[in-house]
């Protein structure tokens, strides 16, 4: 370890010097007692932008949005106790979706740890199962090397959240600043290079397959493997289906894209999975929302699973050929090993038949406003190139169906944890990262209220975010399950009597806002929103209350049990 500087510094100074070494541009934070020393130092720091949030959960989602949009590590700074515990949901979200963020939490002085001191919480203990790794810094001499490790662990291998707990006395202590150039972690060696013989075998199997399918997950986007994917799919004329996190890895406008698979995936993508003879999973994890009933998932196929995380392999579905490695590297090697492209002519004929059998449809003729129409119009106006940040629920699934993503890092959503309240703050983070394309935040009326306080953050920083609020006055997805699976007992999902006036809320935050319930207004309002660049703008779309997302394969079921439309015509609204 070579010293990069020999200056004596306080922990707070070391903290910022270390962030500078990691080329951190933005910190999403909220001050408090245990981090006062850091904020004291921050007061005089000019080259780092601190974004003041309104709630620490918002900060974590902003860091996630920033990380997902930029590919860089998102950084959060909060105080001890409640400041730290408020980050838990965002950390869990980042853990489930493998988002590289580093969360710095203040902590009571080390001498008081364990004494139930004011604003004390054992955040290292609390977050142990939801972080890739976490640290309690016990000595200022370990601070710089711990920060180095935190960024390294968060951003390499399968990315994920790392938490660093900073006791108040450590931050105030002084030592010599040395930023290590290398990380030494004998227990952490992510494997980037896939096994050569396995890659060769995979190429052989794919070459002779008749019905191959590429099943693409978020890993392809994280490892920047989308060029390799496009090349490989194109050269070999293999159909591509994507998971929720994989959307954008392959252009959905391309004829080879089958769209999303799984519970609310397209009929043809799910039929293709069920009938393929070789299934190539690239950076995906066979999540239950993808597989449905595990025992009957893609039973006819030879399964190749490429993933950088060995624990993903054989966890849910037992595969025939595992390849542990960085999907970017593996795909490049795989392409080089292919002697001939598989003959997929008949397979494509079959897939195209499925496309016609059960296309994505919605009622567009009764003059009522529907989410699908809003999203299709948005898609047309932005040509699939906007950065779409969604929340969780029906609108999220409709986005996956009706917004045709063409670029990676354009679809930002909470998939694994399914965190309502994600979109609003995550779009703020994305907006700091993305300047050349519109950032559109889409939420339902339920999720929008879960981090609604961050509207003022968006307004204060004059971020040109387009907030599209899909208001059906219901917790729509839960309502849908109640209708389909819970005897139509609409228990506590109807918000029509309790929703606020969203336009007034937005206006109170200094945000321009409109509301409509007419399809006729959609084009004009979207045009205005997309053109407006002076700050955020909110458009509330009051849509049909009782619409459902179709198709749906009920949880734990198979393609045979797919529901493609509402059965009872009397119920059609």
């Amino acid at each position: 370890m070579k010293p990069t500087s020999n200056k004596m510094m306080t922990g707070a100074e070391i903290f910022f010097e270390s962030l500078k070494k990691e080329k951190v541009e933005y910190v999403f934070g909220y001050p408090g007692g245990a981090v006062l020393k850091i904020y004291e130092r921050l007061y005089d720091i000019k080259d780092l932008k601190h974004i003041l949030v309104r709630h620490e959960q918002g900060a974590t989602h902003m860091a996630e949005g920033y990380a997902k949009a930029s590919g860089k590590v998102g950084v959060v700074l909060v105080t001890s106790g409640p400041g730290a515990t408020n980050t838990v949901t965002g950390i869990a979200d980042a853990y489930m979706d493998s988002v590289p963020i580093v969360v710095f939490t203040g902590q009571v002085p080390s001498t008081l740890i364990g004494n139930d001191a004011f604003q004390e919480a054992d955040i290292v203990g609390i977050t142990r199962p939801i972080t890739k790794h976490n640290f309690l810094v016990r000595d200022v001499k370990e601070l710089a090397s711990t920060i180095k490790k935190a960024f390294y662990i968060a951003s390499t291998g399968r990315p994920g959240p790392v938490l660093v707990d900073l006791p108040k006395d450590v931050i105030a202590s002084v030592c010599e600043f040395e930023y290590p150039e290398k990380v030494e972690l004998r227990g952490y060696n992510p494997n980037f290079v896939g096994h050569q013989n396995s890659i060769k075998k995979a190429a052989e199997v794919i070459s002779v397959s008749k019905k191959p399918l590429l099943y693409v997950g978020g890993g392809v986007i994280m490892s920047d493997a989308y060029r390799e994917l496009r090349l490989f799919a194109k050269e070999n004329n293999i159909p591509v289906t994507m998971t929720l996190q994989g959307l954008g890895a392959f252009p959905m406008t391309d004829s080879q894209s089958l769209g999303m698979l799984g519970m609310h995936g397209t009929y043809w993508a799910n039929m293709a999975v069920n009938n393929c003879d070789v299934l190539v999973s690239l950076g995906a994890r066979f999540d239950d929302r993808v597989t449905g009933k595990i025992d009957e998932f893609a039973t006819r196929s030879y399964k190749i699973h490429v993933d950088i995380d060995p624990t993903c392999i054989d966890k849910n579905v037992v595969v025939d050929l595992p390849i542990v490695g960085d999907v970017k590297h593996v795909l490049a090697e795989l392409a080089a090993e292919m002697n001939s492209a598989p003959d997929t002519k008949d397979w494509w004929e079959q897939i195209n038949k499925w496309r016609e059998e059960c296309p994505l449809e919605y009622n567009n003729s009764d003059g009522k406003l529907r989410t699908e129409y809003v999203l299709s119009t948005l898609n047309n106006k932005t040509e699939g190139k906007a950065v779409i940040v969604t929340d969780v629920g029906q609108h999220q699934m409709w986005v996956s169906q009706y917004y045709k993503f063409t670029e990676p890092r354009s679809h930002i959503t909470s998939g694994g944890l399914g965190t309502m309240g994600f979109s609003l703050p995550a779009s703020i983070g994305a907006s700091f990262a993305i300047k050349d394309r519109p950032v559109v935040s889409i939420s339902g009326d339920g999720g929008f209220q879960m981090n609604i306080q961050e509207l003022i953050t968006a307004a204060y920083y004059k971020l040109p975010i387009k907030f599209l609020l899909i208001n059906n006055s219901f917790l729509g997805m839960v309502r849908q399950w109640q209708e389909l699976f819970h005897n139509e007992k609409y228990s506590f999902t109807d918000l029509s009597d309790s929703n606020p006036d969203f336009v007034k809320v937005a206006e109170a935050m200094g945000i321009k806002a409109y509301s409509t319930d007419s399809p006729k207004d959609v084009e004009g309002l979207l045009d205005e929103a997309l053109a407006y660049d002076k700050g955020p703008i909110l458009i509330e779309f009051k849509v049909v209350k009782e619409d459902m997302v179709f198709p749906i394969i009920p949880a734990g079921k198979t393609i045979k049990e797919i529901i493609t439309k509402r059965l009872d015509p009397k119920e059609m609204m």
Partner: protein
Amino acid sequence: MKHTISVLVENHFGTFNRVVTLFSGKGFNVHSLSIGETETPDISRMTIVTSGDDKIIEQIVKQLNRLVDTIKVVDLSNQPRTERELALITVYYHRGTRNEIVNIGNIFRGKVVDINNKSITLELTGPPDKIEAAINVLEPYGIKEMARSGTVALKRGEQIKRDKLESLTT
């Protein structure tokens, strides 16, 4: 089937907790778990006796490997190994049974480490099945209390055939 998994971990604050959190969070079984320093003071060895089908054991090994603080994970179950456990067992006695209990201790190559006018404490070491056998035999006398260390295990050194050894030494 029971598996004995040996894990070398960083001798850090919180490492033990990380492993335990992993087992509880993923719903893995723990029959016994022991931890102590190794010949290298900054590395500890954990010996975990767990059970599950092959898929679960594979996940346990992989998940342990994934922890940043684990250095090496070995499933010793299908390898030649030495497994030992230590048990302290306090058994009630009366005049008629005292010698019997001492004898049982001797049969299991145990030691009497404490005695008062009501009970005897035996110290037993051996493979876990031997400890189980001793407990089984002592149970009818009335076990007052018992402490078991959990299994510790090491892989056996590789046995080199004599002819090979000779060729190596000459």
